[in-house]
């Protein structure tokens, strides 16, 4: 299994454990993709999952830079416009996952940007 979907599965497990309800995975438009869309009570959460196998280039979540944040905001806008979800508020989370042979590290940043 590729690293990306392996990480996203791990993220989903974490969210479910935390009581989130997964609404959609890999919501894909022409210009990008939202990894996970989930409900946390009445808040709709757009989740970006970043998976890495080593820390050579820094923490996984550090890779969510300004341009990526802007793209996610645009994607979220279109999602809300099309699906009109029944949510009271919205937010963005980032989950950084480190996967290698001996251990997995998951860092969940709520309301990241």
């Amino acid at each position: 299994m590729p690293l990306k979907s392996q990480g996203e599965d791990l993220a989903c497990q974490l969210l479910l454990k935390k009581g989130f309800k997964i609404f959609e995975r890999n919501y894909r438009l022409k210009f990008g993709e939202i990894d996970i869309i989930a409900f946390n009570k009445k808040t709709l959460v757009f989740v970006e999952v970043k998976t890495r196998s080593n820390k050579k280039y820094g923490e996984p979540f550090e890779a969510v830079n300004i341009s990526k944040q802007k793209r996610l905001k645009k994607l979220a806008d279109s999602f809300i416009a099309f699906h009109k979800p029944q949510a009271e508020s919205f937010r963005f989370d980032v989950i950084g996952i480190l996967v290698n042979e001996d251990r997995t590290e998951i860092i969940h940043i709520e309301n990241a940007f």
Partner: protein
Amino acid sequence: MIAKLESATLYGLEAIKVEVEADISTGLPAFNIVGLPDTVVQESRERVRSSIRNSEFEFPLKRITINLAPADIKKEGPSFDLPIALASLAAFKVISHHNLKKYLIVGELSLNGEIRRVNGAISLAICAKNEKKEGIIIPFDNAREAAIVDGVKVIPVKTLREVVDFLNDKIIIEPQKTDLKSIFTSNTDFGIDFSDIKGQEHAKRALEVATAGGHNVLMIGPPGSGKTMLARRIPTILPDLTLNEAIETTKVYSVAGILASNTSLILTRPFRSPHHTISYAGLVGGGHFPKPGEISLSHNGVLFLDEFPEFSKSVLQVLRQPLEDGYVTISRASTALTYPSKFVLIAAMNPCPCGHSGDRLKECVCTPIKVQQYRNKISGPLMDRMDICVEVPRLTKEELSGNLSGEPSSSIKERIQKARIKQQERFYERNIVLNAQMRAKEIKEFCSLSPSAKSLLENAVDKFALSARAYDRILKVARTIADLVNSENIELGHIAEAIQYRTSLK
């Protein structure tokens, strides 16, 4: 976790207290600075990050927000590096908070955690004193300058690590001490002297009167007659700076960033001679955050403008107001700042483009119109502000080859010093120090004329069509001439000398 400490920013010659707050919160890692920082302050993020890492502290991957309050004043310059780094470290709980509030903290950081000098140390130290801080933490290179300010501990620091250990009470840093007496007894050797100049007794006398009372001088003469030579020797007869004047002058140099490293005070009166290609901003000060110009750098000293008519006309016009007021206010979109500019203007020029009009030996080749055009470059109002106009003629061959050396600077200086003391006593608690700075009230009070002197002056006003300003200025010069011979009243001879200084060239 939030941490707070106090720093200061320069606002003209004064420093204003600035609170530096650091907050750490969860979220994607970010390091933001808010509170109207300029580009240099924004860039301090990179310096702070590197110097913290290179000082072997951890820089956590958290969301760090720095706030500089009050938020409506533009923050300028690199002096916030150290406060920002310390506020962040305090927010990371590397530094205990109890010492932070005691000090005002300034300093620029280099990437390896060393602390570099900042501008305006003396103003910053005064701010620390006014804010009733126990001390100021300041770069090592600035310590001697800051230590001039009495009543505040000056903690000289070299590296970020050292500051952290100091604030955590792990090490003790001895406050910098300065012995004012030993500073003021040091003597300067100029290497030049008024006795080098042969002849030109008239011009020397004029310069003596000018320096004694702070009057402006215009020297006119053919090339090579010694105008520049005379001007260069003015510093040798300038009276010593008083402590307050020295502090004022040092402040200006420090804020302009041209005070030499490890200097405590400027002890000689400044003598500035800018080239005639100078822009108006260079002369009166300017820039986005206005910096002091040449007229402020010659505060309490002499501004010498050689080749006076070669300066661009607009540049000379901007001199008019500061000459009258003794300060200059520079307004820009971001701020309006006031710098002091109490200087003596000494200007030198040729009488005509070829330089030989009125010369005894060489014939002038300029047409009258050319001469007129040349002289018109100095506008009437500016000419009106020149109290003393003096001709510096070509020397005769007897004067040139003669062995007669002039009076040495030291004895001229002695007379000037005496005249200045007399003025100081006269203007005690009046906020002025020199005859040239007298206002209408003081002129009325101190420039009483003998009846014969009065009638001479009235005749001169009629005959030469002198302006009201010229009238007042003649009185001021006459007052100085009287002071030089220690005379209480202005006598006929004094007023006559003052009148001829003004009218000899018109």
